[in-house]
């Protein structure tokens, strides 16, 4: 495949991204820094019965009730024990504040647009509708995550069918 073809197929260069990079399993992901409120250590999370696996529950963030999602489970990455590096990334989404459990937060980066490839250039599985780009850095790839895409939307069923208890 000639590079000229690639250049013609590729859409115009992405603009610079200012992101927070974190790790899920062995892979790196990033979220737009504008969406990130703060990063806290793992703290007590109250499970909500009858919710999907990846809804960890709710937690108390300085007096506010914030729902917490296990990003690993949400993205289909095999679960692992929480370590000392596990963090909750608190983000602001269209549906309010949400906490995302990640394995570690590594850094804040400014990624120049030229290093970013659109997701269509890479073969992706249909459920990866939340990756909006891949950044090819020197030593690794960082998948740029679309927050609204990774969060459940309104029509998504948060609660599994099994939770419907039948009245005798």
């Amino acid at each position, binding site marked *: 495949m000639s590079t000229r073809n690639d250049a013609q197929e590729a859409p115009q260069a992405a603009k610079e991204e200012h992101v927070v990079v974190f790790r899920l399993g062995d892979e790196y992901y990033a979220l737009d820094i504008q969406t990130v409120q703060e990063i806290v250590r793992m703290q007590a999370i*109250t499970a909500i019965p*009858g919710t999907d696996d990846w809804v960890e529950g709710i937690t108390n963030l300085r007096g506010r009730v914030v729902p917490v999602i296990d990003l690993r489970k949400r993205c289909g990455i095999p679960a692992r024990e929480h370590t000392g590096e596990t963090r909750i990334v608190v983000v602001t989404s269209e549906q309010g504040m949400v906490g995302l459990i990640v394995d570690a937060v590594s850094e804040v980066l400014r990624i120049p647009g030229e290093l970013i490839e659109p997701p269509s250039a890479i073969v992706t599985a249909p459920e990866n509708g939340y990756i909006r780009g891949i950044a090819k850095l020197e030593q690794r790839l960082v998948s740029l995550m679309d927050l609204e895409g990774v969060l459940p939307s309104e029509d998504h069923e948060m609660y599994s069918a099994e939770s419907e208890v039948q009245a005798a």
Partner: protein
Amino acid sequence: MSRGTPLTFELDDDDLKLFLEEAEEQLELLDTALVELEGEPDPELLQRIFRAAHTLKGSSATIGHRKMASLTHAMETVLDAVRQNRLAPDREVVDALLSALDALRVLAEEVVTRVDSGLDPTPLERVLLDLLEDDGAEEEAPPAAAAGPSEAESAAPADATAAAESSDSGTEDAGGQPSVYLRVRIDPQCQLPGIRCFQVLQELDTQGKVVSLTPPREVVEAGGAEFTLEARLVTTANEEQLRTALQSIPDVSVEFGQSASEPAAESPAPAEPEQKPRLALVKNERETKPQQTKAQPARKTQGSQSVRIDVERLDGLMNLVGELVIDRTRLQQIKDALADVLKDAHLTELTENLEETTSHLARITDELQQEIMRSRMLPVRSVLTRLPRVVRDVAAKCGKKVELVTAGEETELDRSVIEELSDPLVHILRNAVDHGIESPEERRAAGKPETGTVTVTAWNQETYIYLSIKDDGRGIDTKKLRKKVVERGLVSPEAAEAASEEQVLRYIFLPGLSTAETVSDVSGRGVGMDIVRTNIERLNGHVTVHSTPGQGSEFIIQLPLTLATTKALMVVANGTVYAIPLVSVTEALAASTADIQRVGGRQMLRLRGKLLPVADLAEALGDRRERTHDGPRFVVAARHGEREVAFLVDRLLGEQDVVVKTLGDLLGTRKGLTGATILGDGTLGLIIDTPSLVSEHAATLAIA
């Protein structure tokens, strides 16, 4: 004037807020007052009404809302005629005014949406002006320019206490006639001095003829005046009357004198001795507004000093206090832990100090919490003011004569509850007028006064507010009710037969019931009372009914004073702490002592002569995790309406006041849960939605 067209008004966001709050106040006042107007109105009432319309006209003109200014102008003209006894406020007149009021509400909304509602007030204006036949007041064309009523308007210049006559020909003419010179100052804290000056000018126009004005009329009418206004007025009103009339406009103070006009420079308003300090509205603090001083301005309302605060600010304060409470608890725990260590180290004084301080902190925090809660409270009056209008409308539609009496308006409750109270109250009231009160002929035949009475009373007791809606109508026909529920298949014939009078009365709350022969569109198709009760119970309240045939019925709504907190029974089920609102809990007991049997394949609890279905709380909520509890369990019986269910839990933790927090948008409406609460150790507990859980798990028995 087409629907959906964008509109612009001459005001920024702050002015907008101010305008809306004022407008709302005037509109509400008019709503209540206009209903009272019918029949024998008293002069003071008329004056209040006139003033309200006048103010609305002024503010709407100043912001450039032509339609609204024009409609209020028409209303004002009619009201003026009533005020001068040239027009009697009969039903026709009041109806027209009330319709205009409704239209005004729609028009006021346009200021918020900035989109044309499509409402054309012209037909309404014509109706209003037609009422006037041909008397002296000329109705000029509605103001064409955004700058306010036209010069050529000849307002009837009667003032409150004397019928002064003078005509405004629009030309200056002070020749030989007594004139008064006055200087008006607007409070420097006022956000909209231009509007106030405009209102002053309007008032002056009704008091006499303005022969000189600084700043000039065009400027004042365009809302461009600032904090001082000077005028020479030809009038037969005396200083006292003028002062009273002018100083009823907020932020205004008046001086009379003979001095030559000075340049209209801004100067601080001298404090009038007989006038309490009047200040403008509070709004959100913006760093960019330098004149916003630390001392929050207050508006004088009905003789008391009060401050308007954004609800968000109060909610923010509540949150902060909530956190304070948690830290206080933690501090006490730490103090307790340290106590031994300190004692061993013989640091008794330090221990005492720590003890004292933590106690004091605890007390202060509790008080702070109480005060914040109390500042969220509003008198129930605001809900009650809607009612006269509702009664009037329904009575008219049904051809009944009904009088509404209210009591206990000053009873306070949290604003979250007030909002929820309105609909059920209105619905029950409509029912009372429509079904409860008999027609005038029936009443006469029964030896009752033709006009029925509905009494709405509010009071509080402990942590609840009670509202009674009592009518002196025909009462509820229990015989008919018994038949109807069987006919509709809602209750088995045997159960209906065996039910006591009290139980039959409660049939009113069954879904799908309507005892009206003809379904009037007023109270609907019998879906009403069922929904009313569900909504009240969703708020952790109750509604009960009493009735005496031939004499009347009484509905009593009981609601907690606040939705922000609720008294709950704390339990643990499979490792999670749950709060069950106490209002639905009927009993809590140890499972070992409970009489649980298997009946028809289900676990049932025999309690107080009833059989309650038993459900595991964790399972009922969909908790599929492994059960870890080993050991004795407990049963909590909870009720919703007529149904009761017994829930199995692992531990009982006791009663507690819990602060209700929502689960947020992401999780949406949870099945079985209404929210979360922060526990003493900072973790979260879940608050149970008893009505939905009970409904789901109750066996479908006929009403016991």
